[in-house]
């Protein structure tokens, strides 16, 4: 099968999300998997250009940050009482992006949703880099960023420790745990693939590096046995972790008494929103990758279709949360809440609120159409809108709430400054720099895991079904048509 093969369409075999039964008809054998995926690692000019552009964006953000550290936070667009702005918005945005990766790699793994296999590596890498990006922002938004280590509990000569009742300390724990666990998860999954790289590499230096990184992995039965178990437990840990992390992020808001923040709906609302935004970002990343890296027969339309359904589902959850918020504001009878929501949707911030509602609630409804779900151009465009909409969702949660609090005398507008925008651009540069480095150094698809869904060679004819099934007849690979 050539890489330019058209997207295979199998009528009647549409993926079913909780099913592991996903086939890659265009992939014949293990060697093809290895060859095609390793082929993506060849450096291209476009890649160098992209990397240079990313580093340039990062430099913009870095310069802006240095300026901000020197001058003080006043160079950002803060307008008290809007004490949190673009940085926290972007923080929540990137944490949210990260969540889809873990959802796909861990939760769908536990659910045995087969379509995850081809996109999970990309998504998990996206998670790690997104969390790395997000993790910068709480530091970056500090008035005294050089003191951020005071949030970390360690024995010190001041004899004073962090205040563990603060959601920000929870954040530190949640984000660091999340970063550690998702990076571990990514890396553990990478070990067998690193072994492949090591075995295929000819450059001795790179071979050594891959050798060290693969920890001397050799695909033995003992390794695979413990690997599978460890992988399962990591997935099992990641699942509640991913839910907890965005819940904890939502606690930053829900624990406050700010109207528009102080609501119990926030944890599920944030988790759903995070997964929604993350799937949007997965589309943004995977659609160009499958095209440019010629991986369309791995990341098939069936996979995208399944992911789009997930996207639609989370969009509906998020939309439901939006409406619930309005309902509760009305139902609570609290003048403060009502005033805030009126101001949010029809007052000062109507434009932001409607960007949010349009991009996150209305446009994704189009995914009810199967035709659109299988249209990559549409999905890519929609994903851009979702990214925008989810950034604005956080904008709408943070800025209008703070600008319209209890004290009418302190109601205020807010407008980001060029420093805010530069650092936002820098964060995209930082993220894409890591991602670009990743896609050309490490396989973007999980080689070993894809081999799991690719039929191995058999000396005797065997039905596909019995192989994909759970090996109902232990110790036997006799032709098992009898079932």
């Amino acid at each position, binding site marked *: 099968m050539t890489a330019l093969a058209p997207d295979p369409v199998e009528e009647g075999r549409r993926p079913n999300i909780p099913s592991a039964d996903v086939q890659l008809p265009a992939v014949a054998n293990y060697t093809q998997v290895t060859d095609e995926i390793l082929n993506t690692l060849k450096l291209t000019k476009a890649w160098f250009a992209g990397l240079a552009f990313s580093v340039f964006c990062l430099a913009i953000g870095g310069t802006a940050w240095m300026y901000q550290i020197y001058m003080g936070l006043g160079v950002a667009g803060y307008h008290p009482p809007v004490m949190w702005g673009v940085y926290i918005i972007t923080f929540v945005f990137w944490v949210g992006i990260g969540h889809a990766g873990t959802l796909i790699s861990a939760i769908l793994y536990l659910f045995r949703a087969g379509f995850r296999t081809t996109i999970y590596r990309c998504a998990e890498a996206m998670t790690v880099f997104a969390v790395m990006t997000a993790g910068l922002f709480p530091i970056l938004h500090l008035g005294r960023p050089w003191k951020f280590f005071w949030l970390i509990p360690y024995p010190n000569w001041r004899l004073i420790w962090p205040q563990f009742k603060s959601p920000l300390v929870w954040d530190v724990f949640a984000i660091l745990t999340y970063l550690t*666990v998702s990076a571990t998860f990514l890396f553990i999954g990478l070990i067998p693939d690193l072994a492949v790289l090591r075995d295929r590499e000819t450059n001795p230096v790179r071979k050594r590096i891959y050798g060290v990184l693969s920890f001397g992995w*050799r695909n033995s*039965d*003992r390794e695979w046995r413990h690997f599978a178990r460890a992988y399962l*437990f990591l997935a099992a840990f990641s699942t509640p972790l991913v839910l907890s992390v965005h819940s904890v992020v939502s606690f930053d808001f829900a624990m406050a008494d700010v109207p528009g923040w102080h609501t119990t709906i926030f944890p599920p609302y944030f988790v759903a929103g995070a997964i929604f935004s993350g799937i949007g970002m997965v589309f943004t990343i995977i659609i160009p990758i499958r095209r440019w890296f010629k991986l369309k027969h791995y990341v098939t339309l069936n996979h995208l279709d399944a992911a789009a359904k997930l996207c639609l589902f989370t969009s509906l959850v998020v939309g439901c949360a939006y409406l619930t918020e309005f309902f509760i504001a009305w139902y609570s009878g609290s003048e403060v809440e009502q005033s805030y929501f009126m101001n949010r949707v029809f007052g000062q911030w109507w434009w932001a609120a409607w960007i949010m509602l349009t991009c996150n609630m209305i446009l994704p409804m189009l995914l009810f159409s199967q035709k659109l779900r299988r249209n990559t151009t549409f999905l890519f465009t929609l994903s851009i809108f979702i990214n925008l909409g989810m950034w604005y969702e956080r904008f709408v949660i943070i800025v209008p709430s703070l600008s319209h609090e209890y004290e009418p005398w302190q109601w205020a507008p807010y407008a980001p400054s060029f420093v805010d925008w530069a650092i936002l651009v820098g964060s995209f540069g930082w993220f894409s720099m890591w991602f670009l480095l990743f896609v050309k150094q490490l396989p973007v698809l999980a080689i070993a895991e894809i081999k799991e869904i690719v039929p*191995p060679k058999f000396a005797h004819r065997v039905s596909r079904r019995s192989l994909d099934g759970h*090996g109902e007849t232990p*110790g036997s690979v006799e032709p098992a048509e009898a079932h």
Partner: protein
Amino acid sequence: MRGIVGVFSELDSTVDAITELKKLRVGDVTVYSPTPRHELDDVLRHGPSVVRRFTLIGALVGVTFGYWIPIWVSDYWPLVVGGKPIASWVPYTIIGFEVMVLIGSLATVAGLFINARIPRITQTVGYDPRFSDGSFGIWVECRPDEQETVRRVLTEKGAEEVHGER
């Protein structure tokens, strides 16, 4: 550390060879496969992995530490914030949970490393780069007198290549 390596390209041949070797009870069989296959697991008949014990212990240590540290810190220098109890277990559940996940995960990884014997310093005997690509391999560590039997079994069962290794 001597033994025989057999390189297989077909899964069912590999399974057959393992079954035969197990039946003959020769040497110590290690199977290499580019991807985990249940067929191999089933024929190798390993017990459940002990990684789960590491996970459990790590998680318990984590949750204990995660609760203990904020409570200890709160009582170490009692300061009232927001009129709340000085050491209040409810919010500390979050710390407990996160640390549980953190230590639990790291313990899982440690369990993997310990049980899978990685990082390996000596990992090469009996290994072949093909095993990470498309071929299955059987490495039988055996006494010299058993080598002939093993070679025979592997060849019979369809090994593409059989050779000794030391």
